[in-house]
């Protein structure tokens, strides 16, 4: 996962996408990053480049980041054509300069996907993911209404699998990696987490139908089973979850059509 240790400092050339605002044209601009310590993270290297830009009175490169330890899902650079850079299973912020050769020319771009418009330079708007969550990415339980936590045992296997799915950090790399800009992996991860747990059953059908419909409505493309998504995913969310969601979706569609419905309306004494 991590390249061999190297003690020698390196120089690299960056080709960085600069774009002043949402509807403005962008272009690549070249910068030199000199004398980088191989143990420096890629984002720390950008910090240093930015400080020197500021000192020269230029606007620094805008890029998104926060936790810098691979968990918040904020960082989102496409490095040399790959969302989150050269290595598997890590986020941009966990990429270190030891992964690059001395003299390398590195291209840095924002995620390119229609539902994630560029805000500035390398920062994109991923609020579409919140909208998908609002459509059904939850279990409707009022605060305080939960039963004792051990009242319903859950098999360790299912709990572990639900956790595998729940690890998604909402970064959007799956969308950026997909030629159709499909959000299937992201949606499948959430849908599967809940469908694997007893608490998620009552809303199971409604959830998958609503989230998929919202995803389509927001302009994410469809899945053609290329699995670029799971290859780019920093949390290695498996594309098996997509298959699982597809099964859920089909069952829900059928049940939706043939399910007997109560005539009762709300209200009463």
């Amino acid at each position, binding site marked *: 996962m*991590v390249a061999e240790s190297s003690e020698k400092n390196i120089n690299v050339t960056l080709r960085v996408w600069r774009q*002043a*605002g949402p509807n403005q044209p962008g272009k690549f601009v070249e910068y030199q990053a000199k004398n980088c310590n191989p*143990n420096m*993270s890629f*984002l*720390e*290297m950008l*910090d*240093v480049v930015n*400080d020197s830009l*500021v*000192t020269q*009175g*230029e*606007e*620094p490169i*805008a890029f998104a*980041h*926060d*936790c*810098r330890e691979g*968990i*918040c*899902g*904020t960082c989102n650079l496409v490095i040399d054509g790959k969302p989150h850079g050269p290595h598997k299973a*890590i986020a941009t912020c*966990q990429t270190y300069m*030891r992964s690059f050769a001395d003299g390398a020319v590195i291209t840095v771009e924002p995620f390119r996907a229609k539902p994630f418009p560029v*805000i*500035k330079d390398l920062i994109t708007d991923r*609020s579409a993911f*919140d909208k998908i*969550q*609002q459509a*059904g*990415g*939850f*279990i*409707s*339980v009022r*605060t*305080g*209404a*939960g*039963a*004792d*936590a*051990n009242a319903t045992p*859950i*098999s*360790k296997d299912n*709990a572990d699998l639900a*956790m595998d799915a*729940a690890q998604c*950090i*909402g970064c959007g790399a799956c969308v950026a990696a997909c030629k159709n800009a499909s959000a299937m992996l992201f949606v499948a991860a959430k849908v599967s*987490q*809940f469908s694997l*747990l007893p608490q998620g059953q009552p809303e199971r059908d409604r959830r998958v139908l609503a989230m998929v419909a919202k995803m389509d409505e927001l302009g994410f493309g469809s899945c053609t089973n290329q699995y670029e998504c799971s290859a780019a995913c920093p949390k290695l969310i498996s594309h098996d979850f997509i298959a699982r969601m597809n099964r859920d979706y089909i069952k829900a569609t059928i049940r939706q059509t043939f399910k007997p419905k109560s005539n009762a309306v709300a209200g009463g004494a």
Partner: protein
Amino acid sequence: MAKLESKIPTGPLADKWSTYKSEALKLVNPANKRKYEVIVVGAGLAGASAAATLAELGYKVKCFVFHDTPRRAHSIAAQGGINAAKNYQNDGDSVHRLYYDTIKGGDYRSREANVHRLAEVSVNIIDQCVAQGVPFAREYGGLLANRSFGGAQVSRTFYARGQTGQQLLLGAYSALMKEAGRGAVEVHPFEEMSDLVVIEGQAKGIITRNLVSGEIRRWSADAVILATGGYGNVFNLSTYARGSNATAAWRAYKRGACFANPCFTQIHPTCIPVSGDYQSKLTLMSESLRNDGRIWVPKNAADCDKPASQIPEEARDYYLERIYPSFGNLAPRDVSSRAAMRMCDEGRGVGPGKRGVYLDFADAIQRLTEDGVRERYGNLFDIYHEITNENAYKQPMRIYPAVHYTMGGLWVDYNLMSNVPGLFVLGEANFSDHGANRLGASALMQGLADGYFVIPYTIGNYLATQKPGSRPKTDATEFAQAEQNVRDINDRLLGANGKEPVSHFHKRLGLIMWENCGMARTKESLQKAIKLIPELRAEYWQNVRVPGSGATLNQSLENASRVADYMELSELMCRDALAREESCGGHFREEYQYPDGECKRDDANFGHVAAWEYQGDGKDPLRNVEPLNYEFTQMSVRSYK
């Protein structure tokens, strides 16, 4: 002088909260709830749980975050776990024991009643999270698993691999999204609170800057809740996310809210040591590792340069096990951090610069196999590998203490309301429950306790005193004045046109704080810092360079305005540390210690909360005191031996 009434209910400790809830708190009737608008700033565990629950109850809620989505709050990074007095392990845990461990862990500087309430509602939190679909770790029988954390002799910590904070936050976020989806909460991402609006002595709104468009906006409400997290980034290098900041709390302080115990900061013992001056953050290795890892340094300073594998067993000093035999590697954070510092001060540190100690898993691998260790801590070993390029299955980890949490924060009463009526403060942003030292896995507990189970009751008590529909309009002069204040600060920063980037100043400030107001403090070091900080601040306003304009996304400006606040808050931290002439928890004054290096408290003179009140620019702040009246537990010497 601010009036600090703690509003602690009378009666037996174990009944206070339930009696207060059912008998004393005023209720708001359902039809009136929707006439009240509540602003929640922050959507970490505290803010998201509060916003979602208040919306469920029928209040109109607006939730603001500076992040691009509420799911990014810093709570997401919490690794180890969350405490709850469930006693599922049948190992003798109880609400009282959790209460006692937390009060003792905090070195008797928190309120008994608050801590007891926290322990009581801890059990509801786990129920709530499981009902939301949080995939906690389970045993083969299908029941929830637990582990131990520092400062406790029972296993009461619930966890989701090494990503507990992530899973709890995503649970609270899903509740928030549920409410947003049905229109009960308006979520405003990329919207940073830059000032508090106080009208006739009550908090009635906020000013924000939209981080995308640069627009400065006014928002009015019947009550304002801050759940904006801690201020540890004052130190520059810390385990916090880079964006975590103190602006909301600090600007509220400058509008009259008291800042309590600002010097109570937590230095976490197990972080990856600093490797170079380009470094932007320090990474935590969860305390849960101390369940199975053993901490040591060479007995002999001459061995420090040798690889660990060449240092034989008898030449190793497992100093925590030696000094604190009953808690061993699970001694509380402040105690463990200082012990590591002492070892390195003695010249027995390891790694670059000799500022590190070993955390060794060789025994655990023998006992559990490598796969067994991987199952428990795999992701942490991976993180360690990514950062250091070292394989901790083969050689011990190197760790060193780093700034991690702030126990201090805005002063609040039992209702979590600050001394400014209508301003509530939740989560790490308040000062309330952890005294002078927080135990591991207790911050997540407190954030969710505040948001799910306390504020939904106590806010009604305030709102019931406000006429429905009486909230001011945003054209009130106080709004205009606060907006102008924000514009002035930003214009000054943009116009300074100096030579140095913000980051250089932040580094320098961080170094002053780490050296003089860090793990150990003295009168001299603090006086020195109180002299250096204003000098650096003056230089900052003269020589900082903030390119670009305020009318677009401008990360330099965001940082500059946050660092401007650190330049002031840091001084208050040092003043507080100087005034507190005792050692307690994370506040270690070298002058006040026992011969074995443990904290020497002075309950007679400092058994109180210090709540600082702003008096205007250039004036010394006022130190108010809230006495801590211990009715039920004896303040005793904290011993982990």
